[in-house]
């Protein structure tokens, strides 16, 4: 096996991984940093983010508002000290991206423009038309090229961490083009592998979003935190799940049911006018909008399409000119995949899985509980998203905490000695043997796609927009059964070069572990909060028993062990979470209570 000795190995070359690599290279240009990614950097799923990234810029906005929108949106399951750090550094990161060339959309005077987003009191979403993630990713990738300290292993697929005596010493990766293995020995490892939305059936995620980093770390005893919180984005294409950005509504789009009625007014988000209005109706938070769809469907007020129930996303009143300028990709998607011009006809949409709020437990410095191991971005749980992520916060997170992770990894790499190479190489050889066994397994007869689809269907049924005890239990049971069947997986492809069936099989192993963490965490949380909503006697939030983070810890021969840890609440006490008129009323009341303290 090839051995590559470096200072820092970063797994995943999306927004978080690239930002971490640049930060590490700037912290110490003498470091040897390698970016390991199963795809070329510009294919990473950051590319698909559309609407924008948060950063306070307007005079009438404040860090306090951003803090409150985030903590309230997350239904008080956010660590408030981390949120404080986050909101204080978002704008700086957005400006840095601007300096690196990100083509942010502008005002006539040349300043960067911002738009409205769901659950947001004042407009603070920086945007590059409706391809913000695409532009951030390409800007970061291209900028990374100027740092000689950064080398890349493109199209290298990580199969496991190498851990000895409580410290992480690197990763084992397959060169996809040849099937050969490399042990990347590193003093510090940063996991930046993104989310796990592909464990669900209908999702907005690319095929690569399979929870690889979460599972690799989980298998070494690091807890996955708050995994039951999976965000459904309310406006996605029926069938494929492709995303129609929240910016559609930020720009003034409305949602109507089969009667042309703006149904959100029936779910505590009204009144409908005046429109557009922040934190009301279509600019409510994602969890509430997805839940409203669920109820409309059961009331028989949705529209039947060949890919299931939908409601109408109506953008016609924005006019062709504004649509082409602000939402060009949305127009293109509607035209290519649905044959609809949004200036002429409403677009059918429905909720689909979009984002994993939970992830690898890390502290404020992005450090995990394993020495030398860091995690950042969607794969991590640093504590800013709580039970429901505020739109625009995920792209900002990549910048703010990508920088923190890169700098922390650089400090770690400079301070720690290299590992016991003979022991590590032996471990890496074991990793290779296990991975190769998957190809050679001739005992079984299980087909990959059958198991994968059964997993995704079971997650959709048991861990969907609303959850029931019996269904969650069934999903837990199904996942255990699928893990057994996975041992009898039989591949068609026994070759090594570009054997994507083999890689998908390893991914399925990752997905099953992550899905188990989600389902068991959900089953154990006997309350409703944010994206975790139950209809089986636990419809209310229960702060007395569940104002705490869930921890799922891996067990090789059974379901994860579930435990809890406290949430760090510094100054925003849990209260009622309200939007629309009720929210406006509450806000006025709170203002009276805290008159004069507004920053």
């Amino acid at each position: 096996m090839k051995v590559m000795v470096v200072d820092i190995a970063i797994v995943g070359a999306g927004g978080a991984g690239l930002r971490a690599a640049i930060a590490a290279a700037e912290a110490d240009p003498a470091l040897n940093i390698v970016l390991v990614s199963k795809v070329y950097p510009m294919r990473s799923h950051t590319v698909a983010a559309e609407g924008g990234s948060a950063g306070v810029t307007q005079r009438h906005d404040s860090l306090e508002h951003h803090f409150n929108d985030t903590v309230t949106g997350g239904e008080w399951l956010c660590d408030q000290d981390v949120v404080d750090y986050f909101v204080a550094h978002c704008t700086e990161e957005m400006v840095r991206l601007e300096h690196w060339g990100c083509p942010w959309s502008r005002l006539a005077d040349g300043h960067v423009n911002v738009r409205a987003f769901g659950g947001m009191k004042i407009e603070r979403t920086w945007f590059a038309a409706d391809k913000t993630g695409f532009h951030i990713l390409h800007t970061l990738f291209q900028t990374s090229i100027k740092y000689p300290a950064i080398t890349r292993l493109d199209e290298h697929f990580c199969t496991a961490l190498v851990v000895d005596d409580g410290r992480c010493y690197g990763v084992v990766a397959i060169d996809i083009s040849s099937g050969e293995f490399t042990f990347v020995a590193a003093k510090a490892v940063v996991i930046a592998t993104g989310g796990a939305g592909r464990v669900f059936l209908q999702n907005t995620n690319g095929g690569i979003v399979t929870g690889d980093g979460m599972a690799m770390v989980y298998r070494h005893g690091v807890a996955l935190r708050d995994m039951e919180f999976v965000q459904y984005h309310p406006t996605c294409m029926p069938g494929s799940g492709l995303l129609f950005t929240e910016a559609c509504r930020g720009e003034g789009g409305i949602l109507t049911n089969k009667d042309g009625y703006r149904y959100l007014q029936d779910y505590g988000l009204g009144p409908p006018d005046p429109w557009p209005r922040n934190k009301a109706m279509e600019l409510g938070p994602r969890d509430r909008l997805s839940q409203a769809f669920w109820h409309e469907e059961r009331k028989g007020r949705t529209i039947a399409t060949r890919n299931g129930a939908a409601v109408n996303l109506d953008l016609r009143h924005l006019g062709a000119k504004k649509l082409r300028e602000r939402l060009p990709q949305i127009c293109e998607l509607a035209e290519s995949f649905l044959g609809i011009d949004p200036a002429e006809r409403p677009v059918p949409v429905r909720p689909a899985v979009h984002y994993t709020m939970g992830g690898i437990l890390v502290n404020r410095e992005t450090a995990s509980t394993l020495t030398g191991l860091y995690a950042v971005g969607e794969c991590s749980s640093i504590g800013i998203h709580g039970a429901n992520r505020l739109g625009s916060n995920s792209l900002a997170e990549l910048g703010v905490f990508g920088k923190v992770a890169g700098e922390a990894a650089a400090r770690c790499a400079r301070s720690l000695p290299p590992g016991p190479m003979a022991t590590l190489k032996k471990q890496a050889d074991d990793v290779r043997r296990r991975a190769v066994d998957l190809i050679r397994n001739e005992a079984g007869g299980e087909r990959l796609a059958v198991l994968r689809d059964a997993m995704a269907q079971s997650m959709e049924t048991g861990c969907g927009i609303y959850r029931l005890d019996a269904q969650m239990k069934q999903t837990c049971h199904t996942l255990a059964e699928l893990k057994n069947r996975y041992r009898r997986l039989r591949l068609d492809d026994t070759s090594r070069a570009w054997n994507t069936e083999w890689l998908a099989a390893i991914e399925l192993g990752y997905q099953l572990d992550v899905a188990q963490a989600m389902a068991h965490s959900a089953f154990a949380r006997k309350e409703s909060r944010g994206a975790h909503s139950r209809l089986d006697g636990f419809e209310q939030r229960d702060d007395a028993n569940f104002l705490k983070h869930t921890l799922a810890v891996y067990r090789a021969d059974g379901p994860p062990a579930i435990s809890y840890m406290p949430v760090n609440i510094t100054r925003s006490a849990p209260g009622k979470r309200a939007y629309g008129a009720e929210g406006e009323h509450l806000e006025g009341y709170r203002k009276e209570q805290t008159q004069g303290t507004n920053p």
Partner: protein
Amino acid sequence: MIAAEWAAKRRVTVEVLRYRPEQDADPSLQAYDIPYTEGMSVLQALQHIKDHIDGTLSFRWSCRMAICGSCGMMIGGKPQLACQTILRAGEDRPLRIEPLKHFAIERDLVVTMSGFISKLESIFPFIIPKTSRATTEGEYLQTPAQLARFENFSDCINCMLCYAACPQFGENPDFLGPGVFALLQRYNGDSRDGGRERRMELVHSEDGAWSCTAVGYCSDVCPKHVDPANAVNQNKTNSAVDFFFRFLPRRRSPEREA
């Protein structure tokens, strides 16, 4: 809903170019018969084959929404994104799906990308600030008109369809090519950038803009309407101007300070 219509069991045949380096001496076509559903993309057809018929078929894909740039291939002889190309039923001949033209095949529909990446890396694809600025000083001002001068070129998704369309790249694999020229022009045209002079050396070179024979097919096939042919043309003009000005006494405008 007319269930019967949607459930109609129509089938379609596609021919896929197969090449497995560990067992095949040469590439050859393989036909697959698959169930057809209205609105199905070529990518979904390939996924159906891989999932249910033949797990050995290899191809790149990810986002499914024409933004990650992974799934470029020759579909019916034309470079297209598999995710964005809708399959049609009832054609006379089976649809042929092949790897992108002008690139080495690694396996099946997967081609070698490293040459393209090296070119992309070679053109200083990052802002070389005209005037440096700290983040505490806020953003550079850039008017919508200044943004419009390069925005189109910044939309390139690196799918390489334009390379498969470019006869010149077919002849000379060292030609920088349309996509990389679009990227080069994206930075040269950016009001924040002062790195034009460094990049122009590549434009003047043997494998630079003058290699282009102005066929324009690159712009026809671009799925994002980037118009790389226009980027190459602008560089021909710039290169000619530079060539002319080098016979005059040197007087550099501030815009062209590196």
